[in-house]
């Protein structure tokens, strides 16, 4: 597909901040223009952080997209997104604050035939800066996440989150968000082998009243990477849109999203999984073996419990949310066979959740499953009509990272 768009001065700052926010996730990002707008996506190498920013065509002063028919193989989409190296794009939007003052508008155009994307900044005094960047065609990347299935939802202005994060040192990698219906607490994350005699710990307690929307269905304590989040906070401040936080118990992803008429963004981060304290078995009963795609039929909730897998011994009583969880098919591992089972599952879940959200602005994942989709695993069944594949196979996800962390966090549940 070919696309040409123009970003007006005022929106440049927002766009630039989006690029910077995505840059914190990975070195490359997916540039995916579609008829309705432009999507930018990124995922980090350990698949523990995913970002997607979608600018609707209304965000731009001018947006024009034409499908170009090309001979393509069956599995490929009609319009392939392209991958760009962030480092090449960042200089275009360096000094975002200054951008607004000096640049009148920015035009972006793609030229699929010679694999170029051109960024052109039209600045004051007739200066025009042109950046021609090559892109690689690549597999589409999308993740879907069941936001509306999350028991815990907080909504707050980004200013508040920024005021909270300022108390943590910039070197702080991970923080823990702990909620009960009575209070909200952000604190420095500590591993079991933290040397407390050398580490300064910070904790911030907030009252639920400070949030624009506060729903806590299940007490939970989730730990995620702060660094990846900071970009989103700066971006949402530039866009002046409140931030919604959707999450569940530890181990399940946490989504930070913003949405208004012109744009939507979601940053989905994996959270650390806690070990089962009461694990009777010598086996580590905890996270790293989440469910197969097959296990969705079980009414289990925590990775530790589960039907099919005899190796997991410790069981926790299923909570009231167990039923809901069934539909939450979180992550499989690389070792899972992304076979038809997965597809079936996804479809089933898709069937349930394909409601109104889909028609609206389907790029942003008001949808069920935190899964990645990649041609690489060769299991796409692509339907041309639906831009978002709801028939994705589960992919490598956070579970890998969680293993690395080896989290042994004490359970609050």
């Amino acid at each position: 597909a070919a696309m040409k768009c123009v970003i007006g001065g005022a929106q440049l700052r927002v766009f630039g901040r989006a690029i910077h926010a995505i840059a914190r996730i990975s070195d490359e990002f997916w540039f995916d223009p579609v008829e309705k707008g432009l999507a930018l996506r990124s995922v980090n190498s350990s698949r523990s952080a995913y970002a997607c920013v979608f600018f609707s065509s209304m965000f731009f002063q001018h947006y024009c997209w034409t499908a170009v028919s090309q001979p393509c193989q069956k599995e490929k989409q009609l319009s392939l997104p392209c991958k760009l190296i962030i480092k090449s794009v960042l200089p275009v939007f360096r000094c975002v604050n200054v951008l607004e003052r000096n640049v009148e508008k920015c035009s972006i155009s793609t030229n699929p035939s010679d694999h170029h994307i051109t960024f052109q900044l039209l600045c004051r005094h007739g200066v025009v800066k042109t950046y021609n960047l090559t892109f690689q065609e690549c597999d589409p990347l999308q993740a879907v996440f069941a936001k509306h299935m999350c028991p815990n939802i907080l909504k707050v202005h980004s200013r508040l989150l920024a005021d909270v994060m300022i108390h943590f040192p910039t070197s702080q990698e991970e923080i823990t968000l702990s909620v009960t219906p009575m209070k909200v607490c952000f604190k420095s994350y500590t591993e079991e082998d933290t040397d407390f005699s050398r580490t300064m710990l910070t904790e911030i307690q907030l009252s639920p009243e400070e949030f624009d929307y506060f729903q806590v269905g299940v007490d939970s304590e989730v730990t995620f990477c702060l660094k990846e989040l900071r970009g989103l906070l700066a971006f949402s401040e530039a866009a002046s849109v409140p931030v919604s936080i959707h999450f569940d118990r530890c181990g399940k992803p946490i989504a930070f999203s913003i949405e208004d008429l012109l744009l939507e963004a979601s940053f989905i981060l994996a959270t650390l999984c806690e070990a089962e304290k009461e694990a009777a078995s010598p086996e580590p009963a905890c996270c790293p073996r989440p469910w197969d795609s097959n296990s969705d039929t079980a009414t289990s909730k925590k990775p530790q419990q589960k039907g099919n897998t005899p190796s997991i011994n410790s069981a926790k009583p299923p909570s009231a949310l167990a039923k809901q969880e069934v539909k939450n098919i979180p992550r499989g591992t690389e070792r899972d066979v992304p076979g038809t089972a997965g597809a079936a599952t996804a479809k089933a879940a898709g069937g349930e959740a394909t409601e109104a959200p889909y028609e609206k602005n389907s790029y942003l994942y008001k949808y069920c499953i935190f899964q990645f989709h990649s041609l690489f695993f060769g299991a796409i069944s692509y339907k041309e009509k639906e831009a978002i594949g709801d028939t994705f196979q589960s992919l490598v996800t956070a579970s890998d990272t969680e293993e690395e962390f080896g989290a042994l966090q004490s359970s609050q549940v």
Partner: protein
Amino acid sequence: MRFRAKIVDLACLNHFSRIINTIAKLAKTCILRLTVCKLYFILSDKVANGGASMWCELSQGNFFDEFQMEGVAAEHNEIYLELVPENLSRALKTAQNAKAVKIKLTNKHCPCLSVAVELPSLSSSSRIVTHDIPVGVIPRRMWNDFREPSVPDFDVSIYLPALKTMKSVVERMKNLSNFIVIEANLSGEMNLKIETDLVSVTTHFKDLGNPPWASEDGCQSSAQDRDLESMAEACIDIKKLQQLLAGQQVNPTKALCNIVRKRIVHFILLHEEVSLQYFIPAVA
């Protein structure tokens, strides 16, 4: 051993923060000594510190609205803690508009100074930010290592020039040399000198004034026999001097230094509520 203190007044809090910032610039780790009336920040002259030592003393009543402590024992009603002042500085940094700051000694995973900052919020209940700063408790048998240093038997005592001026001079000299010579005489003259293979630079200050020290056991009377023009000099690590000057956030009421020829330079910076002494040994 118990300690709890509270600051409610914003001006006191800011002043206290500034002092902590100054200490943090001078020492990576230091000793905090608590007594009923005073707080001391001490850096002893161990080799690890590069030989420089520091003694900073403040009256708790000038800063804290509440201050309670119980030392290790009744006859030794003091607490000595080892801490990283940068941590304390960081904890106080975001307390600019706090409603109150409480500091107390706790023992969670290890002995800590817990700094709880109560911040205003949009809702009826305040936001509370707690920082747990790990500390090491110094046992009583080691307290002797941290006694107040005595004023050395100096050759010259002189008031310092405006710290801002001195700082900018030293900062530029730092780019040229690792060592600086401070020399001064009893006629109110001071020179800062650096000398390398390529260049030597000297900055001259005059009319600085020499503080009158009460004469004790005759050591000062010999100074009167001394030539008023003769310079006493010491060559010191320029970085240490620069750290001292850069850390000053407020102009002191009095600033002076005592020079022991080729041995040590003793700086004294006095503010209304806090005094800071810093010793930089001369290099061979």
